[in-house]
Structures are given as structure tokens and as C-alpha cells.
């Protein structure tokens, strides 16, 4: 049975600190949704509220069409995978995976030492449980590890045991709290792959918390970004990348980070960067301080004869093989630097001299404008509506 998840205006405060502020979102059945944001943005708290481990101050959580606010974590029929795996330290991998089943199917006396041997049906139930544990272990290729204790397993193996423990109950909803952040870089890339496959195979609904925007971008069908307890944007990874709703989303998503430039609109709404025309207009916002953002791959060296929008000095030239990153310091504002991303075969006439300022340019429809509150401002560039250019 597939269930979606609906959050209705969830709010939570710890003491006087507001952690979540009216967060609403709907996860469709079978979807893989990531909750991202910088640490302290409230994403883990939100996940614990969905799980029922924490109570919200206000708002409702529904799984499927059922409001689950009054239900215990167990009754919500969810499974959770934790950052530090949270395996029961003195139980073997097998016992760890079997525990959710034995708790559900055996009565309390049947789980007690000594007393348990009195039950005639216990042996049969334990055999069933063993079969299911082995089936799940087979799916995750950990059959050989079942007898080991968590202390004898590597990080990747522990993560698989934790996944198996989550899967064995066939829950309607998987909650994952930064499950890959304790793995080394190589293993993380590999597990990312495996989790995506697992999601496709199980067809279950996944809610995945991460502070790693790459994980969010590569794995999820939709991404919800939280910023200071508020839902900043909820959409597909490409929507967040191409049309960030706030300055926080723009700077958080993408690596290397988006270039943020201080800009100003004049009385007629023409936007300028350090006095140079940017080619963008905001008629509704005359005479305002704005942030103008351009992704590194949208910034390029100005062509001969073209009027550049920025003047900058080259500080560093990083070659990654497939691409190059050119780090520039803006002329007249050495505190601010920008990155230009070039494909490997793109020729850059840098002139070799780092003392001379080089002109940089971008297409106005690739720029994002944000007002002083960090909210997106629609701009017009070269007479073309930004909206049509972006979509």
C-alpha cells in the first residue's frame, strides 16, 4: 500500500527559539523528496515530527489520508534510517533486523528470557521472522554478515544493516536522516546509487534529509529547501537550480556556489553593478539595493568589442580536466570574488597578465535578482521577459 505525506502548517519552538514556522508540503505516493538546508534550519526536527518522535506545537501530519498526530511512531508504520545508523550495539545484525518484527508479532512474555520457551507458537513465528530477515538481507547482500555485532561491521555494512531493519517491516514511508554523511566520499557516491535503485525497486515513499545539495539534486524527484525554519522553495531539483525563489536557495544549491554581486537599481529601474550597466531592468523597484546572482557556467570572458558587465583580475586558474574554474577578484572591490566555469575546450584569452582587469559578461536572462529581504525579483532583460527565458 502506497501512501503520500501531507504536512499542514507545522510549527515548532524549543523554548523561545522558533525552529519550524508553518511548514506545509505534500509528498506524493512513491515520491523521493529531499529536505535540504544548512545545519540548524529545522530539517531534522521536521523529520522527527513526521516520525512521531517529537510533537509539533501546531499543524497536522497526515500519512495517506489519515491524520497521525495522535499516533505513536510504531502506529504510523514508518521506518527511519539514522545518521549514525542507530544499531542496537549488543545485538547481532540478524537480531537488529528481526527486532521490529518480533516486537510486533510476539507478545511480551514471549520476548522475555526463560518465559519465552513456554510458548508453543514462538518457534513457528521465529522461523517466519528468520525467513523474512534473510530475504531482506539477500536484497542488500548482507547475508554473510548476519551473525556479526555492529562493532564488527564497517560503516557501509552498518548502513546496509540499518536499511534492512527499515525495510523488513515493509513500511509505507521511509524517513532518512542524513544516512550517508558518515561514509567516506567514495562509498557515499556508491550508496547514493544504491539508494536510488532501492527507491525504484521498493516503489515506496522516501523523505530524505540532507545538508548535501548534491545528494538532494541527484537522488530526489523533488527538493524542499528549509531556511531558518521556513520552507523557502519546494520543486524539482532543476527548478531550484534554474529559478531559485530566494537568495538562500540560490547560494545553497549548486557547486561551486553561485556568484553573488551587489547591484543597485536607478530611478528608472536600470540595474547596475559597481556603476556598470547589467542589461537588466526592474521597473517596479526604482533606487534599491539588490543582489544579482549568476551561475559560474553563465559567466564568460567578454568578447572583443563587447561592453563587459564586470571588470575583474584573475587570481587563480583551476583545471579539473573536464572543466576549468577561473577565480577573479572584482576590480575596485577586492573583498568580492567571482568564479567563471569554462568547459575544457573553451579557449580563454587571459592575456597572461594578472595586473590588467579583464572584462566578464553574462546574458541578462541568466541572471537572478533578489531584493534586500532575499526574495526573488522578476527582471526584464533586453526587452525579453525573464520568465519566458528561464522556462
Amino acid at each position, binding site marked *: 500500500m502506497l501512501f503520500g505525506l501531507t504536512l499542514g502548517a507545522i510549527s515548532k519552538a524549543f523554548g523561545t527559539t522558533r525552529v519550524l514556522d508553518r511548514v506545509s508540503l505534500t509528498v506524493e505516493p512513491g515520491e523521493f523528496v529531499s529536505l535540504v538546508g544548512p545545519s540548524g534550519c529545522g530539517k531534522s526536527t521536521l523529520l*522527527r515530527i513526521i*516520525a*512521531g*518522535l517529537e510533537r509539533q506545537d501546531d499543524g497536522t501530519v497526515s500519512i495517506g489520508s489519515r491524520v497521525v498526530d495522535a499516533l*505513536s*511512531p*510504531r502506529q504510523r508504520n*514508518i*521506518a*527511519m534510517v*539514522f*545518521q*549514525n545508523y*542507530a*544499531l*542496537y*550495539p*549488543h545485538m547481532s545484525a540478524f537480531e537488529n533486523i528481526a*527486532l*521490529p518484527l518480533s*516486537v*510486533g508479532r510476539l507478545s*511480551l512474555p514471549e*520476548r522475555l528470557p526463560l518465559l519465552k520457551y513456554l510458548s508453543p507458537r514462538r518457534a513457528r513465528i521465529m522461523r517466519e521472522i528468520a525467513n523474512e530477515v534473510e530475504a531482506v538481507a539477500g536484497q542488500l547482500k548482507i547475508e554473510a554478515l548476519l551473525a556479526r555485532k555492529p562493532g564488527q561491521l564497517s560503516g557501509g555494512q552498518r548502513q546496509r544493516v540499518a536499511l534492512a*531493519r527499515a525495510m523488513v*517491516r515493509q513500511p509505507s514511508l521511509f524517513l532518512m536522516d542524513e544516512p550517508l554523511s558518515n561514509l567516506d566520499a567514495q562509498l557515499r557516491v556508491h550508496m547514493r546509487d544504491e539508494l536510488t535503485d532501492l527507491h525504484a525497486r521498493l516503489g515506496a515513499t522516501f523523505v530524505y534529509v540532507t545538508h548535501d545539495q548534491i545528494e538532494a539534486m541527484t537522488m530526489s524527484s523533488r527538493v524542499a529547501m528549509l531556511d531558518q525554519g521556513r520552507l523557502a522553495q519546494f520543486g524539482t531539483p532543476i527548478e531550484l537550480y534554474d529559478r531559485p525563489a530566494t537568495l538562500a536557495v540560490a547560494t545553497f544549491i549548486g557547486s561551486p556556489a553561485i556568484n553573488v554581486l551587489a547591484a543597485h537599481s536607478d530611478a528608472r529601474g536600470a540595474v547596475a553593478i559597481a556603476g556598470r550597466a547589467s542589461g537588466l531592468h526592474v521597473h517596479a523597484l526604482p533606487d534599491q539595493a539588490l543582489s544579482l546572482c549568476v551561475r559560474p557556467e553563465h559567466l564568460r570572458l567578454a568578447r572583443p568589442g563587447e561592453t563587459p558587465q564586470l571588470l575583474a583580475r584573475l587570481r587563480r586558474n583551476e583545471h579539473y580536466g573536464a572543466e576549468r574554474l577561473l577565480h577573479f577578484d572584482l576590480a575596485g572591490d577586492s573583498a568580492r570574488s567571482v568564479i567563471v566555469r569554462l568547459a575544457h575546450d573553451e579557449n580563454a584569452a587571459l592575456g597572461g597578465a594578472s595586473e590588467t582587469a579583464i572584462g566578464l559578461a553574462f546574458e541578462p536572462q541568466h541572471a537572478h535578482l533578489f531584493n534586500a529581504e532575499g526574495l526573488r525579483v522578476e527582471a526584464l532583460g533586453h526587452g525579453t521577459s525573464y520568465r519566458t527565458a528561464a522556462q
Partner: protein
Amino acid sequence: MNRLLPPSHRLPGFILAHAALLAGACFMLLPFVWMLLTAIRAPDEILTGGLNPIPRSFHAVENFSGALAQAPLLNFMLNGAIVCAGILVVQLIVAIPAAYALAKLRFRARGLLFALVIAGLCVPIQVPALPLYLALAEFNLLDSYFAMMLPFFLSVFAIFLFRQTFKTFPDEIIHAARVDGVGEFEILWRIVVPSAFPAIAAFSIFSIVAHWNDLYWPMIVIQRLEYAPPPLGMLFFTSSESGASYGVLMAGATIITAPLVIVFLIARRRFVQGITMTGIK
């Protein structure tokens, strides 16, 4: 072996420190050595033999069989075992859930309750001794195992120690267990307690040693020989039966001390762990 040797420039300090420790150890062990020596000497030699460590005639068999025959030593030890076991079991059953609640559950007045536990640590047994005695007398419970155990059922020290240990247990694992549907009591006994085994073992050793050796409280509530735990039994035995036969007395003391020494030798590592863990001796 090489690892144990310090760099040569620190050698004098090393020797000095160990000499001091060795002297301290000798000083502490001396009464026990003297007890053992007295237990194997002939009666006439005990007072006249001076400081000569080697007995001239060995009287060990007579002294030990005398001690076993004259005093119900095995009975004293059985009493001690019953009292120690009873106290320890109830202490653990009470202190472990209390400590878990203080460490991991969120409820109102938790801070206040914990402050009361700390305050309880500061109250010595002598303070409530009189009211406890009066209450036990009122209910005709004097001269019983129960009377010897009652004041110690609730150990604030155990609550404090276990709370500190449980606090270090990862919340994530408790959360995982709640999601898996494990009840709070089962989380405690099946998941948290096994991880706290070193602390529980350390406390058990403290508790057993303290109550095996306790003389003060049994002396107040026990009049009859058949309930006497080892130290009180020895006291009765000295005053009534043995008179001046110190050899027999020391043989009895040796027999009574032996179980604790054996427990200590077996659980030495846990004992040291316990002291370093609690910072309390």
C-alpha cells in the same frame, strides 16, 4: 617491557613515585598480613612472639577448625550473602528506571528531582538511623533480614551513577527503538542496560563490599546471632565465646574476608574501572 620504562631523565622521579606507592601498599597490607600470620600461630606465640614474621610452630589447622566449630561462620556468611543480594537486586530494580527517566525522558520537575537526588547523596546513614529504627520497631520488624536491607533499597548514588552513564547513550538508538515499536521499559532493559554493563558491575561491587563489611546498621537492628552478618557475627563471637584466643578469631576473620578478596581478584579490572568512572572511593 620496554614500553613501561620511562625516559632515563625521568628515572629518579619514577623510582621515587613507585617507592612511595610501594610503601603505601605495604602499610595498607600490613594488618591483613598480620591477620594471616596470627591465624596460623600457636596461642602462646601470639602475644610473646614479638614481631617475628615466621611462626615457630604452625597452628593453622587447629585455629581454622576451631573457628569453624566454635562460631557459626558459614551461617554468618550466608546471612551476609542474603542481605547483600537482596539489597543489590532492589537497588538495581529501583535505581535503573529512575536513572533512565532522569537521563532520557522529558517531564516537568525533572531538574528538581535530580537536584533532590544530589541532595540525597549528602545525607549519611546516621541521620535517618533513629526514625528508621523506630519505624522498624513499631512494625515488629527488628531482627530480620528485611530490617538490615530496608535503609539501602533506595540508593541515590546508584541513581546518580546510572544517570550519568545513560546520558551518554545515543538518543538516536532510543529513537530507532521507538520507531521499531519497542516499549519504553523494553528499551531500557533490553537495549540501554546491556550497554551500561560496566557501570552496573562497578556499582554492584561497591554495593556488595559496603554491605558485606557493614557493622553499623546490623548492630542497631540485630540482636539475635542467627541473623548476624559476618562483621556483627565476629563481634558477638569475640565477646562471648572466644575470649582471648586470638588465633581462632583471626582464622575466622580470614574466612570472612576471603570471599571479598576472591571477588576482587576476579573482578579487579571492573573495580578499577568503577573507581575511575565514578571518581569516588
